[in-house]
């Protein structure tokens, strides 16, 4: 019951989802759509598990008077407000939407934009012409960077063309090769999961 049932369910669900791709029969497709909706619903249910873990961790911090527990209160206030507002209404202009637009969107957007700084510091630190490979990486990056801005055109007429060439030839060839390898790795792993060979997802390998 503890090992065999989940593995059997895993196998059955996997085989069905794999072969439905080849069977256009409406009854099969109806089951496919139904199962897909179930899986998505399952995920929605699962979300609560994470939230419970989050709440437990921070309640623990507050309860044990851990340093910095004030921030745990901040977290609870944010969570409480969103849930409270959310079940009242989610239309544009509602408090729920206000919080989303003026708290979550700007913080996440700003975190994302930190990458503009990090991309510069990473380039400065790591782009060293130590080996042939590192030199090529550095040169390709530099040419493409130049080719993307007006200054590149001013520097030399052929820079935009060189940029296109790098993107469309060596870049394309290597991406394609990596993609094929990754695809095969994914398929092999998926098969091993279905057959119960790879079962880390249920904890351990016994």
């Amino acid at each position, binding site marked *: 019951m503890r090992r065999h049932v989940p593995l059997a369910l895993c196998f059955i669900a996997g085989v069905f989802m794999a072969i439905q*791709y*080849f*069977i*256009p*029969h*409406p009854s099969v*497709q109806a089951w496919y759509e139904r199962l897909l909706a179930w*899986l998505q619903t399952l*995920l929605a249910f*699962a*979300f*609560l*598990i*994470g*939230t419970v*873990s*989050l709440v437990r*961790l921070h309640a*623990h911090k507050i309860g044990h008077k851990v340093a910095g527990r004030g921030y745990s209160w901040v977290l609870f206030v944010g969570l409480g407000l969103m849930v409270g507002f959310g079940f009242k209404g989610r239309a544009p202009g509602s408090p729920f939407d206000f919080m989303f637009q003026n708290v*979550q969107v700007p*913080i*996440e*957007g700003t*975190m*994302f934009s*930190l*990458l503009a700084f*990090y*991309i510069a*510091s*990473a*380039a400065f*630190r*790591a*782009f060293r012409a130590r080996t042939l490979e590192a030199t090529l*990486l550095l040169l390709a990056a530099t040419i493409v960077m130049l080719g993307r801005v007006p200054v590149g055109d001013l520097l030399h007429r052929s820079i935009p063309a060189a940029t296109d060439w790098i993107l469309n030839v060596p870049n394309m060839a290597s*991406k394609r090769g*990596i993609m*094929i*390898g*990754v695809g*095969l*790795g*994914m*398929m*092999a*792993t*998926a*098969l*091993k*999961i279905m057959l119960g*060979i*790879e079962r*880390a*997802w*249920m*904890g*351990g*390998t*016994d």
Partner: protein
Amino acid sequence: MRALLPALSLSVSVLLALFPPAGRAADAPLSEVVRETAAPAAVTGLQARDYLDNNDRGDKIELSWCLSADDGAGALSVLEYRVWRSQAPDEQGELVATLEPGTAAHVDTGVTPGVAYYYRVEAFDGALSSPAATAGPAVGRINLFQTSRLPVLVLSLAFFAMVIWFTRLAARGTNLFVRRIPGLNAVEEAVGRATEMGRPVLYVPGIGEIDDIQTIASLTILSHVAKIAAEYETPLIVPTARSVVMSAAEEVVKEAYAEAGHPDNYNPDNIRYLSDAQFAFAGAVSGIMMRERPAANLYLGAFWAESLLFAETGFETKAIQVAGTANVSQLPFFVTACDYTLLGEELYAASAYLSREPKLLGGLKGSDWMKVITICIIVAGVVLTALGVPQFGRWFFTQ
């Protein structure tokens, strides 16, 4: 090299399955054409056949024809095409579609499955209709197999056969050689260094859901890392962006601690769910790096734009960093900012290699020989096109 022969012969049989001899489509008699004066020229080559789509209810019939010679030309210029459907060959039937000039195909939806239909297509110039081209009977059927996907099925089955074959070889104890993967040893070194410094290890299994195969591969690696950390008695922090991944990671780590003989050292507070929101998660992980100062950061799994946020923050805290992802777009950032990076497929290889479980190596071997077949197909395609074998080339270049 002995294994090369079966691989070659397999690739030939795959090729044969992929390129069956060309044949004419079934139930598609050619149209008859009668010429009249003053009306536009009739369409030619009308064919009607069962249409197959993803959710095939058998209620669609596909028509195709060659345009009327007067389409877009002269005084008899075609204004529209009219499609009629009937259940007897010589009836006019009902008008099911009027189509713009330049249209040479139509899918008639709403036919009853299993009933034979006849079609007539006329070109109309605003005053007169051309003689009708006719086709039929055509029957809409509920199909059990999507024929256009045959190559996918053949290749997948061939691949799986190889994976299972190698897995069984391994289970019987045959020694399968796998070359050393640079960067893999770094995983153990990193944990060792964190132990020396008396600081924790941070393991981020990506931000993919557990349905992402990369996440599963990452959990297998996590199991291995957790065992080493348990042996060294080094704290292991695993922040996750998905609830289910957190549950699974808990199981994996708990079990690894038990196996290493230190079940009491397992601390559930170190397996943390943070946020489903991509950058809220990234921000919170950056906070962990800054405040808990892990000495080894392992990023293995599915990553997107947050990759560089992690790697640069981790660099600032002077942690030794090992990354691996199959998301090609993020590899450049890991390669530049981390100490070691597992590239693409190496992530999957690592999960098999590190667990040291021979059965898991079967997949790696299988995909290796699939690569040989892939290379053979590509080379064959290139060579045959150069030799002017058109059919092969057509399959390649018309998509």
